[in-house]
């Protein structure tokens, strides 16, 4: 890209990315085909698609956890060849270290980067307070609820101050109320320094409520990006209230009419998954 086209390179830039998995029986499965996606600095982008469409795969490409079979991924203009350590990754499944307390789980990112343990723990305490878990610092993950574990996970990722935030259905396993609370917490934390965010979800409402742009993927195999909408809603937002907003409803209607077919296709392929 020419320098004058945008003085700043895109935070995440995927160009013509193909992802192929080798199957156990020797066959090949093409998960994603020719995916091209840019996420600008400070932009919150959500990827929505039917189950099994390869949205998480795309996220793992941006994280450097898997390599594309074709195409390229670059982070702030630099091609990505190894792990993307400028990014923080919030996983769908439990990813906390079960043998560490909440405090140590959050502090670990700083400690391994060479910060003195006492200082790292002090910062960790600050972050736990910020996510509303100040009183739970000494709990082990199994003593926390699902929502509390997600809060610890968020603090664990954000304490490193990554430039990019990758989120793989982070609130998927939570109940509806907790999801709303977590969504608002996320927007609140994000608005402080507006990192670039790539947020994967199957929930269109959540995607619109949180993000600046919503990207739609087709059903797999060989999933493609089939739509890209800007979300014209003002910030700061409240997730619960914004769903009643007129433009929210209109946008939801518009995107859903396109997404619906893919969801049906996805269901047909996964046997109603």
């Amino acid at each position, binding site marked *: 890209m020419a320098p004058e086209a945008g003085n700043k390179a895109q935070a995440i830039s995927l160009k013509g990315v193909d992802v192929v998995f080798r199957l156990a029986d020797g066959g090949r499965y093409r998960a994603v085909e020719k995916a091209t996606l840019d996420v600008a600095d400070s932009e919150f982008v959500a990827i929505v698609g039917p189950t099994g469409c390869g949205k998480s795969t795309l996220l793992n490409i941006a994280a450097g956890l898997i390599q594309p079979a074709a195409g390229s991924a670059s982070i702030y203009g630099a091609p990505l060849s190894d792990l993307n350590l400028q990014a923080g990754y919030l996983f769908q499944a439990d990813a906390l*270290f079960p043998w560490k307390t909440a405090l140590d789980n959050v502090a670990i990112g700083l400690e391994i980067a060479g910060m003195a343990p006492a200082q790292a723990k002090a910062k960790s305490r600050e972050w736990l307070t910020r996510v509303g878990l100040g009183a739970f610092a000494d709990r082990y993950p*199994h003593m926390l609820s699902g929502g509390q574990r997600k809060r610890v996970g968020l603090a664990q990722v954000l304490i490193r101050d990554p430039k990019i935030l990758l989120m793989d259905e982070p609130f998927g396993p939570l109940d509806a109320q907790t999801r709303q609370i977590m969504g608002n917490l996320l927007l609140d934390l994000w608005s402080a320094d507006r990192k670039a965010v790539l947020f994967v979800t199957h929930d269109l409402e959540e995607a619109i409520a949180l993000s600046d742009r919503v990207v739609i993927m087709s059903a797999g195999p060989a999933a493609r990006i089939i739509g890209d909408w800007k979300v014209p809603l003002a910030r700061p937002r409240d997730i619960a209230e914004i769903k009643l907003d007129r433009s929210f409803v209109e946008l939801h209607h518009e995107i859903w009419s396109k997404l619906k077919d893919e969801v049906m296709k996805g269901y047909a392929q996964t046997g109603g998954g």
Partner: protein
Amino acid sequence: MNRSTLLALQILVAVIGLALWHVLTTYPIFGRLLLPPFFFSNPVEVAQQVVKWFSTGVIWKHLWVTLVESVLAFVIGSIGGVFVGFWFARQPRTAAVFDPYVKMINALPRVVLAPIFTLWLGLGIWSKVALGVTLVFFIVFFNVYQGIKEVSPTVLANARMLGMNERQLMRHVYWPSALSWMFSSLHTSVGFAVVGAVVGEYLGAPAGLGYLIQQAEGVFDVAGVFAGMFVLAAFVIVIDTLVTVVERRLLIWRPLASESRP
């Protein structure tokens, strides 16, 4: 059932068992003793024997020897198991090459090795330690190996995304996971260390609980055999209690099976 009822019932079982033993070996029923004292001794004699051992202090030397052998077997076997477990888990090729031999040795009843160890290491404590080591090693080895293989892929990916290098992964992910598996088998491995020591002593030694029992058997001193067994059982219970205390402290981060979230 609350604690005190449970304890009362547990004591009741012991009392009834001892009473039956005493009655059947002492009082003739329908003109004859159901349990001849020559084969079954009786609780009074066994208790006298135990008291005699402790009052004269003979027993301490034997307990000490067995304890030392068990501890050495446990420590050496564990260190070896952790080391080889780590090595094999991180080097799948080495593991694949050695796999049939590991299975072969593990399938071997370890008792048959005892005479060989006696031949190599003499009648002293080291032949018993060696026997215990062969038992402890495999338990620790398999658990450490499994502990490293079973690290959750998500936790591992998270650790790498947080910026851990290979050495930090070892320290913060593989090591705690391996240890937790090893500690969960602590009761088994400690138990096997004692088994190794006692069986070794039984087959030929100058001291130890196994030696004591074997000596009593040699002269048909059934009271001595039973007394030895009781002391051994008490010894194992004490060690097992200590292991439970250690385990509670080390595995504090793990949910107990019966524990519900507060």
